[in-house]
């Protein structure tokens, strides 16, 4: 039930854009995105609910295609602070909130 993330790792220069994908073989109710810096706890970024909405704040946004059971996280004009490992967590049943996390995408932003 673990979602698959791609790419596994990506290196960007400051100002470049990146897309991280999350795909599930099961029907989903929601997708949660988290960022984890080395040695720290995961930090919540956003939730996307069934309905195909797109969300975003600052220069990070995400979309959810419920028909394909896929979500994508978009990082625009990357900053050094964006470095970390990004995880998607998928929720299959509404209100269950028992997330299945992907294996993560390690993002490194260099000057």
């Amino acid at each position: 039930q673990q979602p698959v993330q791609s790419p596994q790792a990506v290196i960007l220069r400051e100002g470049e854009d990146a897309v991280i994908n999350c795909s599930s073989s099961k029907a989903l109710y929601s997708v949660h995105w988290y960022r984890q810096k080395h040695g720290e706890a995961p930090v919540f970024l956003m939730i996307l609910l069934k309905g195909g909405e797109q969300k975003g704040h600052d220069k990070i946004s995400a979309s959810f295609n419920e028909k394909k059971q896929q979500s994508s996280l978009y990082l625009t004009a990357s900053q050094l602070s964006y470095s970390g490992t990004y995880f998607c967590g998928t929720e299959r049943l509404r209100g269950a909130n028992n997330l299945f996390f992907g294996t993560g995408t390690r993002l490194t932003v260099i000057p």
Partner: protein
Amino acid sequence: EAEVAQSPRYKITEKSQAVAFWCDPISGHATLYWYRQILGQGPELLVQFQDESVVDDSQLPKDRFSAERLKGVDSTLKIQPAELGDSAMYLCASSYRYNEQFFGPGTRLTVL
């Protein structure tokens, strides 16, 4: 800003010993989660509480792991006996109803 508290931050133990981890969620958060995160992998849900009741413990190795949240506030996760494969980061998280989860700093367990 309210945070999820966990202790200890680090624990080194020998196999076959018992270990216990403590978590204090953000005040008012009825839902509490325990995750295990192996290095290089995503968090894996071990147990989920709604108040003092277990909602999901399907991935908890019940022969050696136990969790409780007696008064619906703080929680304890126990491993007895610990095995080498239990070495990991144990994360606690809480949420208000079914919204974003707030994670604590974690307990890094090393089993020798």
